[in-house]
């Protein structure tokens, strides 16, 4: 029948198209196959840097490394599903972010039971849960609390004289563990130093942040230092300081990550420094680890990637590398 022939023809065409798009390299026995399960969507800029780190390490070592994005960012069920599916092919190693304290435990255990090593990168939701896996799985990423402490310490190097110090600790999402952890580190330092501080909900929208920080500065013109916790924080903080009429450097602004807007404020002098979790390393180092583990049976180790400081002294260097997706 004409129709039957037509449909068979269409099917064959689809088959042809499908097999032409054969993506996977033939898994040769000598090449390790690693997978990186992420919680990011494909257009996330941050993820692109991590991926570059992963790709560079893979090329260097001659292994296959595949990163999986989920089409709907935040859909943990989707990420879990990717993890489970990846296990079907029995990879040589798994790198994964763990954005939830419990959801991934079963599948991680399943991988370990199958003899597949697992490394956690970037987000470690197991921290503080006391689950046995917290000790077993190595973590390559930023130690949030400690990074806050280091940020505050470095910021204090710019304090002009030990006098009555006032600090604004801005929190984008009150209650969010990553924000509270980072702020916690800053607060620990501030309390040790003897500095008065206020915690403020600054919201996640840059315009909102700017207006709230500005309002605080107007109310407390004696403020010496402003902290923010998220990647979008430094630029609005710098702008707020400028709008409040301060000269560059009068108020110390410290925050996280190296978004282009933040770097530009550093160069203008309104943002003093940021601490960067160095996402490139979060992609690069786990691959190295897995390789060494598989090849020579080395044990695992944690890496705190989150101590990269960016300030006026290296702003240009950082900016250049950021454009190459290395920082």
């Amino acid at each position, binding site marked *: 029948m004409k129709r039957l022939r037509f449909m068979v023809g269409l099917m064959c065409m689809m088959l042809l198209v499908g097999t032409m798009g054969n993506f996977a390299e033939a898994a040769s026995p000598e090449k390790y196959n690693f997978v990186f399960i992420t919680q990011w969507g*494909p257009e996330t800029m941050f993820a692109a840097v991590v991926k570059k780190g992963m790709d560079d390490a893979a090329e260097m070592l001659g292994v296959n490394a595949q990163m999986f994005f989920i089409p709907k960012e935040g859909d943990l069920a989707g990420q879990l599903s990717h993890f489970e599916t990846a296990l079907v092919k029995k990879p040589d190693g798994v790198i994964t972010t763990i954005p939830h304290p419990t959801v991934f435990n079963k599948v991680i255990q399943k991988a370990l039971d199958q003899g597949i090593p697992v490394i956690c990168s970037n987000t470690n939701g197991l921290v503080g849960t006391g689950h046995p896996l917290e000790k077993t799985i190595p973590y390559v990423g930023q130690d949030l609390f400690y990074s806050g402490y280091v940020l505050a310490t470095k910021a204090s190097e710019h304090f002009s004289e030990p006098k009555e110090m006032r600090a604004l600790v801005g929190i984008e999402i009150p209650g969010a563990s990553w924000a509270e952890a980072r702020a916690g580190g800053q607060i620990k330092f501030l309390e040790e130093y003897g500095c008065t501080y206020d915690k403020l909900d600054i919201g996640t929208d840059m315009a909102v942040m700017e207006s709230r920080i500005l309002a605080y500065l107007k109310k407390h013109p004696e403020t010496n230092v402003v902290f923010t916790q998220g990647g979008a924080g430094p630029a609005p903080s710098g702008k707020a300081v400028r709008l409040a009429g301060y000269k560059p450097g009068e108020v110390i602004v410290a925050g996280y990550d190296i978004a282009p807007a933040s770097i530009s404020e550093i160069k203008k002098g309104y943002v003093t420094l940021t601490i960067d979790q160095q996402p490139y390393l979060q992609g690069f180092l786990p691959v190295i680890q897995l390789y060494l583990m598989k090849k020579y049976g080395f044990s695992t180790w944690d890496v705190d990637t989150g101590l990269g400081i960016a300030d006026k002294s290296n702003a240009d260097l950082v900016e250049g590398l950021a454009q190459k997706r290395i920082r």
Partner: protein
Amino acid sequence: MGIRHLLRKILLLKEIGSFVMLGTAILVFYLLSPPFLSLANIQLILQIAPELGIMVTGVTLLMISGEFDLSVGSVFALCPIINIMLMNLGLNVYLSAIFASIASCGIGALNAVITLKLRIPSFITTLGTMMIWRGVIMLITAGWPFPFLEEAIPLQKLLVGEVGLIRLSLIWYGMIVLVSWIILERSRFGNWMFAVGGNPRAAKARGINTDVVKATNFVIASFLAGLAGLIQAYRLEAFMPLAGIGVELDVIASAVIGGASLAGGAGTVIGSVIGALLIRIIDNGLVLAGAPGYWFRIFVGIVLVVSLTFNRIIETKVHKMR
């Protein structure tokens, strides 16, 4: 009954286009990566298929009646959260689930009232309610998930307990599919659904209360979305505020791939199953094939366009065959 006759009957099936696409996709992914058809992988797919599939069936029924629901993703997340909140207040797990489901139905009813009484296109209404309910969820949970409770375990066994090689959710899905099919194809109400979606003026002229038919389907779609959400939450043992975010696109894509018409009045329950399976298979197959993450959207887009074209072509051919 000769082979020719049997073949003819199969080709005349409404869902034939979707079946062919499903078959092709399975073949393609198998060729790209043989573990695709391994028992472990099939098990995996069957575990997660009901969560999307139940929602797609509900939305397909609604689309047949001529309306849309984009808020299913938010109901998907909200229902389990209401469930766990009630449990935190001390209510028994089964009752909490029932009340949470009633709440889902209420959301569906609200969608119906806004769409039908205020005469706002359902696409717009549910776009709005989708955002409202997601916002409500963020407010309730302040961004953070509720921990799974021990008291919830009995319901967990009921919803997603393992039975041999599969989970109970697959069986519930099968039952929902069966019941939906019977109501759609063999009941008076089903006939009204096709009429109301296919030609609402004509349906009204024949005395059918189009508002009641549509409202019922709004409630069904929301109820099933909430149920699907419960199933996922209990499988993952997590009540996540971001659950189901963005799923409405997958749901509508699945429905359309399964043959539901965007204009209303056409669609099948089996088609909804095939559509949901296909969407899940694509994601799974691409991971196994080692495709870079960017491919998922491209692939789904291609399948969508192909299925629409295919269904159109088949309709014309069938026309001539009759």
